[in-house]
C-alpha cells in the first residue's frame, strides 16, 4: 500500500512541475461559467434578462395617437428596456437598419390616427434586423401587444378620441384655434362618461400575471394559490409551511436566480472528464519511453503500478473538483451551506466515473495519441449530449432521450441538486449510484485489459 502511495505522490509531484495543462482545465469552467453568467445572468442587461432593445421609429402620422405613443414610450420604466429613436426620414431609418444599428424599425403610416378613429384597419410596418434573433422577436411581440391595446382603446374610446383629434386639429400651427374651456370641459365629460363604466376592469387591470421560478415558489404552493395572492404571499406561506427558510437559502442569494450554480457544475463535468486522461496517459507515454518496463521489473509489479495510475487519476479528479468548489464558493457562485456528505459522495462518484472511463479507453488503446484523441472525442460527445454545453432541458426531445447514457448527465444532475436546489445526500443517491457503477465497470474492464497486456509481456 505504501509503495502505491509513494508512486502516486511521485506522479503528482511530476504533474505539479508542469501544471499548465491542469491549470487550464481548472480555469476553463470558471472562465466559461463567468462568460455565460455575464452574458445571460440576471444582472446582464435591463434586469429582465435581456439587454436594452433599440427600436427606430418613423412617424408619418404626426397626429394624436402617434403623439400619445411618443409620450408613453418616453417614460422611465419603458426606457429601461427599450431605447426608442425617432427618425424623421424613412430612408435614413431603413439605411440604419441595413447597417444593423437597431433591432427593429417601426413605421407608423400616414393617417394612422384618422383611419383608426374612423374604424378603418391600419397596418404598422415592422422591419426586423436579420442579424439578430431574439430582440426583433421581442419587438414584434410588443408591437402586437400595442396593436391589441390600440384596437381595444379605439373601439371603446373612439368617439371621444375622434372629438379630441378634431378639436385640436391645426392648433400646433395656429394657437388661436386652441379650444375654449367650455369645449374642453365637454370633451372631458364625454371621455369620462366612456371611461367610468369600464374603469373597474382597467384601473387596475382586471387580470394580471406574475412569473415565478419553481425554485423560488414550488408547484404545490402555486396549486394552493388564490387569485388574490401576490408572489410575496406565496413565499411567506411556503416559508411558514417549511418551518424555516432553508429552501430559499440553499439556492443562493434570496430570490435571485443564481445562474453560476447551474453553469459551474455543467462545465466542471467536461473539465473533469478531460482531466481523467492525465493519469492514465502516463501508462502509454511511459511505455513508449521505456520507463514502464523498469517499473514492472521492480518489486512493485504490474498490479501496483496499475493501481498507482488509477489512484493518481482519481486523486487528480477529486482535487480538481475540490478546487473548483472552493473557488466557486469564494466567488459566491455556490452556497457554502451545501450538504457536505452529499458533496463528498457525488464528487467521489464523478471522479470514479471519470477514472473508469479513462481506464476503459486506455485498456483498449494502442498508442497514447489514439487514446487521447478518442477520449477527447468521447468527452466532447458526452458533454454535448449530457448537458455540459447546453442545459439538458433546453435540448430537443430526441437528444434528451440520449442524455442518460452519458456520465455528464448523472454528474450534473447530482451536482445541481446539491448546489442549486439545496438538496442533501439522500437525494443524490441515484446519481451517485449510477456514476459509481460506471466507474467500477470501467476500472474493472480497463484493469483486466491492461494487466493482461502487461502480464503477457508483449509490450513491457
Amino acid at each position, binding site marked *: 500500500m505504501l509503495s502505491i502511495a509513494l508512486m502516486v505522490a511521485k506522479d503528482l509531484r511530476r504533474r505539479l512541475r508542469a501544471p499548465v495543462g491542469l491549470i487550464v482545465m481548472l480555469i476553463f469552467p470558471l472562465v466559461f461559467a463567468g462568460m455565460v453568467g455575464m452574458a445571460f445572468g440576471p444582472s446582464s442587461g435591463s434586469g429582465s434578462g435581456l*439587454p436594452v432593445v433599440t427600436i427606430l421609429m418613423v412617424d408619418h402620422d404626426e397626429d394624436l395617437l402617434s403623439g400619445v405613443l411618443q409620450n408613453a414610450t418616453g417614460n422611465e420604466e419603458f426606457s429601461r428596456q427599450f431605447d426608442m429613436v425617432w427618425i424623421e426620414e424613412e430612408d435614413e431609418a431603413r439605411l440604419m437598419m441595413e447597417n444593423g444599428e437597431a433591432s427593429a424599425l417601426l413605421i407608423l403610416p400616414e393617417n394612422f390616427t384618422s383611419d383608426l378613429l374612423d374604424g378603418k384597419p391600419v397596418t404598422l410596418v415592422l422591419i426586423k434586423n436579420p442579424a439578430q434573433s431574439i430582440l426583433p422577436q421581442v419587438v414584434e411581440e410588443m408591437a402586437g401587444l400595442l396593436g391589441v391595446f390600440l384596437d381595444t382603446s379605439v373601439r371603446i374610446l373612439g368617439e371621444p378620441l375622434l372629438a379630441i383629434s378634431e378639436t385640436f386639429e391645426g392648433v400646433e400651427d395656429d394657437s388661436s384655434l386652441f379650444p375654449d374651456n367650455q369645449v374642453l370641459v365637454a370633451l372631458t365629460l364625454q371621455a369620462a362618461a366612456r371611461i367610468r*363604466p369600464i374603469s373597474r376592469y382597467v384601473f387596475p387591470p382586471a387580470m394580471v400575471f406574475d412569473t415565478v421560478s419553481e425554485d423560488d415558489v414550488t408547484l404545490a404552493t402555486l396549486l394552493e394559490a388564490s387569485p388574490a395572492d401576490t408572489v410575496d404571499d406565496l413565499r411567506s406561506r411556503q416559508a411558514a409551511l417549511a418551518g424555516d427558510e432553508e429552501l430559499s437559502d440553499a439556492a443562493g442569494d434570496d430570490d435571485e436566480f443564481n445562474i453560476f450554480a447551474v453553469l459551474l457544475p455543467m462545465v466542471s463535468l467536461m473539465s473533469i472528464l478531460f482531466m481523467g486522461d492525465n493519469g492514465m496517459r502516463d501508462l502509454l507515454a511511459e511505455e513508449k519511453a521505456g520507463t514502464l518496463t523498469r517499473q514492472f521489473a521492480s518489486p512493485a509489479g504490474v498490479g501496483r503500478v496499475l493501481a498507482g495510475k488509477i489512484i493518481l487519476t482519481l486523486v487528480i479528479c477529486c482535487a480538481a473538483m475540490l478546487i473548483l468548489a472552493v473557488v466557486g464558493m469564494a466567488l459566491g457562485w455556490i452556497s457554502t451551506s451545501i450538504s457536505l456528505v452529499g458533496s463528498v459522495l457525488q464528487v467521489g462518484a464523478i471522479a470514479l466515473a471519470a477514472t473508469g472511463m479513462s481506464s476503459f479507453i486506455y485498456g483498449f488503446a494502442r498508442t497514447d495519441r489514439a487514446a487521447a484523441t478518442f477520449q477527447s472525442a468521447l468527452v466532447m460527445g458526452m458533454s454535448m449530449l449530457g448537458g455540459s454545453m447546453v442545459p439538458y432541458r433546453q435540448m430537443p426531445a430526441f437528444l434528451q432521450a440520449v442524455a442518460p447514457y452519458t456520465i455528464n448527465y448523472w454528474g450534473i444532475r447530482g451536482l445541481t441538486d446539491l448546489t442549486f436546489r439545496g438538496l442533501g445526500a439522500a437525494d443524490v443517491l441515484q446519481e451517485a449510484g449510477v456514476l459509481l457503477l460506471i466507474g467500477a465497470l470501467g476500472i474493472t474492464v480497463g484493469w483486466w485489459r491492461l494487466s493482461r497486456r502487461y502480464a503477457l509481456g508483449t509490450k513491457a
Partner: protein
Amino acid sequence: MIRRIFRLGLNEIRLTFKDRSNAFWMFVMPIVFIMFFGNVIGTGQNDPSDVTISLTVVDQDVSWLSRSLVEALKGEDFAVTEVDPGELETTEGRIRTLVIPAGLGDMVARGEQARVFLATEPDANTQATIVAELHIGRALTRLVGALVEMQAELGENEALDLQADRLAQMRDLADREPLVVVAASFAGRGRPVPGGFGQAVPGMMTQFILMMVMIAGAVYLTEEKLSGVLKRLAVAPFTPRTLIAGKLTGLVMLALVQSAVLIATGSVIGYFKLFGADFYWGDSPAGLAVMILSFAVAGAGITLFYGAILSSPTQASAVSWLSGMVMAGLGGCWWPLEIVPSWLRTVGHIFPTAWMMDGMHQLISFGNGLTAVLPYAAILLAYGLVFGLLGARFLKIQA
C-alpha cells in the same frame, strides 16, 4: 523567394496532417458541433418567430373566463397542454406552467384584480420565457379589452353579469378582424436569422478555424524552437524573414484548406438536408473568400505571436485552447452578440472572432456582397499584421 515561402508553407500543412488527430479536429468535430448547435439553438429553425413555445396550463377555475383565457393563449402560438393538478408533477417536458387559481372568474366579477401565475423551471431558456410573458400579456390584454367592450355596450347604469356564461360572446369578439395589423419583414436580402444553423454555421466555422490554426501552429512552432529545428533551418539557405513568411503562409494555407473542406462538406450535407441541416454561406463567393482569407491572416498572426512568446508545446496548446474558447464565446460564435449587454458586446469586439461574425452576418443574414464586408476584412488584416509583426519581433530563430 516566393517559391521558398510557398514550400515552407506546404511543409507546415504536411506536418499538421501527419498527425491524424488534427484532421479529426479540423474537419469532423466542426461539422459535429454545427449539427448539434444548429439543432439545439432555436431548434434548428432560422426564424425564432417560427418556434412554438410550449406552455402547460392548469385551469383550477374552470369558469367561462378561465376557458376564454386558455383559448386566447392557444391563439398566441403557444403549444398549450392542459393538465389536471394531480398530473402536474409527472408531466414530461414541462418547462413553463400557467396556473389559473380557482376563484378567478368570481373575483373579476366582484370587480377585484385577479392574478394568474407563470411558473418556470429554474433552467428554462430566459429568452423563450420573455417571449412567453409577452404572449400571456397579450392574451390577458385581449381578454380585459373584451370585458371592457362588453361593459361599454351596456353603458354606465348596467353592470355586466360575469356569472353568466359569456364564452360564446367572447369568441365572437375574438373572431373579429383586428383594427391594427403588424406587417413584419426583415431588412436586407439574406437569410435571417442567426438562430439554429444560421448562427451555428458561421460561429463554429470561425471557432474551429481559429482554434485549430492556433493550437496546431503554436504547438509545432514551440516544438521546433525546443528541438532546435528552427535554428537548423536558420543555417539553411533561408533568411529569418523567409522563414517567418513561410510559417505565416503555412498557417494561412492551413486555415484555407480547413475552410474549403468545411464549406464543401457543409454544402453536401445541406444539399441532402441531413438531420435537418441547412448550410448557407450567402450569395457572394467573393465576399466569403475575402472574409475567410482575412480571418486566416488574423489567425496566423496570433499563432505566430503565441509560438514566439510561449516556451513549450504544452503551454502553447493550453493557451491556444483556452484563449480560442474565450474568443469564440465573447466574439459571438456561440450565441448572437445582440443578447449580451452592450459593454460585453464592446469587449467581444476586442477579438477578431467578433469582426469575422459581423462580416459573416453581412453575407448570410443581410445578403450583402463584397463591398459590405471590406471594412471587417480590413480590421482582420490589421490584426494579422500587428500580431504577425509582434510574433516576428519576439521569435528567436537566429542560429
